[in-house]
């Protein structure tokens, strides 16, 4: 599979994503943000980090990077785009995904293991999980409080666009299971077509037992499976 990981100035999970894909036996390419084409790739990853220092607003400057025009074209033509953490923030800023990410409700940065419930396992990103499966994937962000207006939320719910919800260890999507105040406990969403996914948790951090578990591996396996099925 041809995987491209976009490197913005200030990206800091780019190498982590690269290493995670290597664990899966793939060899992705890093794409410098000043390049202008993602032609030939099967998947584009927008990794976590602090692109441009996140000084204006998270993801707000990265969306203007030269590469983003072609990432948007790629997404509109049905290409798989996977935004993690800062990548999710960039996807909402550039309009590929609805809603926005605000400062965490508690105002603090939070790095912690987090339980998620898989809400849609019909996607290219999640087909290896069970519907409703509770998995543990760490979060690490200061601005992951997902917000969207009432109509937008209803559309996400009706179209099965909510992919992951924050839950308690028992799988309850309650206030207690919600670390950052996200609306409807939303941790990750897809676009209507199901080819652009954004999520705050970091699956690339949990693909090896030695570094904290393998609950994130399912996403990598799902993507490979979906891609193999399509070829």
């Amino acid at each position, binding site marked *: 599979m041809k995987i491209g990981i976009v490197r913005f100035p200030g990206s800091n999970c780019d190498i982590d994503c690269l290493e995670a894909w290597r664990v899966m036996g793939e060899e992705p390419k890093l794409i410098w943000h000043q390049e202008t084409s993602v032609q030939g790739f099967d998947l584009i990853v927008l990794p976590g980090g602090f692109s441009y220092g996140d000084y204006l607003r998270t993801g707000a400057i990265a969306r203007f990077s030269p590469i983003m025009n072609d990432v948007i074209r790629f997404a509109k033509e049905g290409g798989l785009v996977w935004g993690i953490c800062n990548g999710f923030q960039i996807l909402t800023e550039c309009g590929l995904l609805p809603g926005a990410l605000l400062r965490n409700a508690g105002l603090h940065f939070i790095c912690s293991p987090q339980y998620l419930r898989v809400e849609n396992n019909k996607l290219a990103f999640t087909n290896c999980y069970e519907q409703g499966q509770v998995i543990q994937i760490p979060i690490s962000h200061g601005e992951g409080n997902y917000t969207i207006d009432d109509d937008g939320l209803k559309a996400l719910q009706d179209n099965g666009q909510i992919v992951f919800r924050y839950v308690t260890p028992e799988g309850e999507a309650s206030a207690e299971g919600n670390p950052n105040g996200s609306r409807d406990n939303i941790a990750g969403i897809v676009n209507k077509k199901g080819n652009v996914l954004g999520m705050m948790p970091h699956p690339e951090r949990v693909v090896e037992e030695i*570094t*904290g578990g393998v609950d994130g591996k399912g996403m990598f396996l799902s993507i490979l499976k979906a891609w193999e099925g399509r070829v």
Partner: protein
Amino acid sequence: MEPRVWREMGLTDEEYNRILELLGREPNILEVGIFAVMWSEHCSYKTSKPILKKFPTEGPQVLQGPGENAGIVDIGDNLAVVFKMESHNHPSAIEPYQGAATGVGGILRDIFTMGARPIAVLDALRFGPLEEEHNKYLLSGVVAGIGGYGNSIGIPTVGGDVYFHKSYSGNPLVNAMAVGLLRHENIAKGVAKGEGNPVMVIGARTGRDGIHGATFASVELSEESEAKRSAVQVGDPFMEKLLMEACLELIEADALVGIQDMGAAGLTSSAVEMAGRGNSGIELELSLVPRRETGMTPYEIMLSESQERMLVVPKAGREKEVEEVLNRWGLEAAVIGRVTNDGLLRVLEDGKLVAEIPVKALTEEAPVYYRPAAEPAYYQELKSKCFDSLELKGTAEEVFLALISNPTIASKEWIYRQYDHQVGTNTVVLPGGDAAVLRIRGTKKGIALTTDCNSRYVYLDPYLGGALAVVEAAQNIACVGAKPLAITDCLNFGNPEKPEIFWQFEQACAGVAEACRVLGTPVTGGNVSFYNETSGAAIYPTPMIGMVGLIEDLSQILGNTFRSEGEQIYLLGELEGELSGSEYLAQLENMEAGKLPELDLQEIKRRIDFLLELNKQGILLSAHDVSEGGLAVALAEMTVKYGATVNIKGSNQLKKLFGERLGRIIISISAQNAPKLEASAKDAGIPLVHLGESGGNTLKVMFNETCCLNVPLATYRPLFEQAIANRMNSKA
């Protein structure tokens, strides 16, 4: 020149006279400013030098000892670990967020300037009690600042330690340790040599921030310090991330002769130190320095502490390449001078000479003070107090719950969850373990990292306390299954011009040195922070120890909690601790006194070796050192998922449950392997006590067959985990 001028810059009249002698003429104001920063305690170590010389600094594992930007130890496979700890106490007292953030930024530069990619940060913090609003403000700001910088640049903050004590009110300690990894051939040095080689400044532009920061760090804090806020620098982690990538690229390409961070005293110290190490001179043309403000004087340019800048000496002819790499990362590079062979620091502005000083006058000729030391009056008095007949205050259960809710003992989760401790995906043991562990990709190895210092012990007995700080670090490293390799230190003390303070310093360093010698962990570098006083009152002497250890095989990592029912719990070491200097005595009796238990370093070494040998056999299930709060607290820390029942026999319940004595480690092992353990301990002559077994959902302690403590996990875990959060969230 008016005496007021040099005095305000922190020079004494004698030091000014020495400058007159060295130059053979009267200096101008710029030159006085340069002398003042280079001769400040922060840059010159003029007071600490004679004492620091006594540290053991050599060993087969040491590739770089003190004197460079950071120390380096070999971990095999052509790989080496670069590490150093540094203080940012005074800036953090005045502006906690930026003070702490730039502390992290500065220490990271010390690591990548050596050619290493930083892989971890640890923070050793000391604050006054959280009952005071101002201390809450400081903790909150410092933690946000460390996170703000580390999270953004993408280096995980994996550990550290935090204590709360009233001596730190108004003078918090913020000591940041950074650790990097490199291949042997990539070791870079902070040296300027090769006549005619260009000198370049790369990274951020120079502004007016932080002028005289080094001098500021070398005076006591007072009411007026708030007014010196301009001496605190402002950090930009985004800029540093770009700078780091660019520097590592330049070093990898072997384009440089030397490279040095522009930290304290900015351009002045980096140019002087690089020339000093290379036995060279250096000539700078200030009009070529990229500036972010107009109208800056030579004085301001030379002394600016603007962050995220480096001084590099490229190999001749490779200036263009340096510029290209920097530009690709969106940064600037400018040639601002050249290396000379006349041994002079020569500063020009638009071709006009504005300062000329022999480099050696600023480095080797810097004054060295042999300060008088005097044993303080409190020492013998506190030492004479005996607590053998003290009775338990309240029930064991009440005391237990009070101790585990003490912020010094309680979980530091409120702090570390604000730090990204996983970015880089190498963190194997997360914060909360005895030591942090990172894997070394491409090998089976891991490195263990910790910071430690119980300053109450140091206050009561500086020699023993200094040694105990090293002992505790070594025990923490061993408890995760790693062999202690080497240390860096950050020596935080009061005003060394006071003989009592200097005595503390001298004694503590002697203790550190002796422990390092016996435990085989040389000192590879560090930092001294004096003048940690507020309105004349000094902090408790705090020689912070940052230690690195090596795990040959990651499958042998040890955890510090019970992971199943029926694990047999043993104590390596003596059952009884002492109340002298204990957390119990301080918290329950409001006393900090007593004679610390005797310390047999050889015995400590034997126990650590014994522990590591057992672990090699793969029979240990967990290990945890017994420190503040004694045995009962150590057991509470190990009972996360599973409770435990332990049986203790003998006299003096108080000293057995809550007494403290380093050199004690709790381990657990399967019932099947227990006889093997008992036999090995007997053979080795190591004291070993069977305490009980894991299981259930309470911590139950039987004392001479009578239950003295029986608390459900559900009662004490939340108290332990929420102690700091509860205090931070409560309004006074």
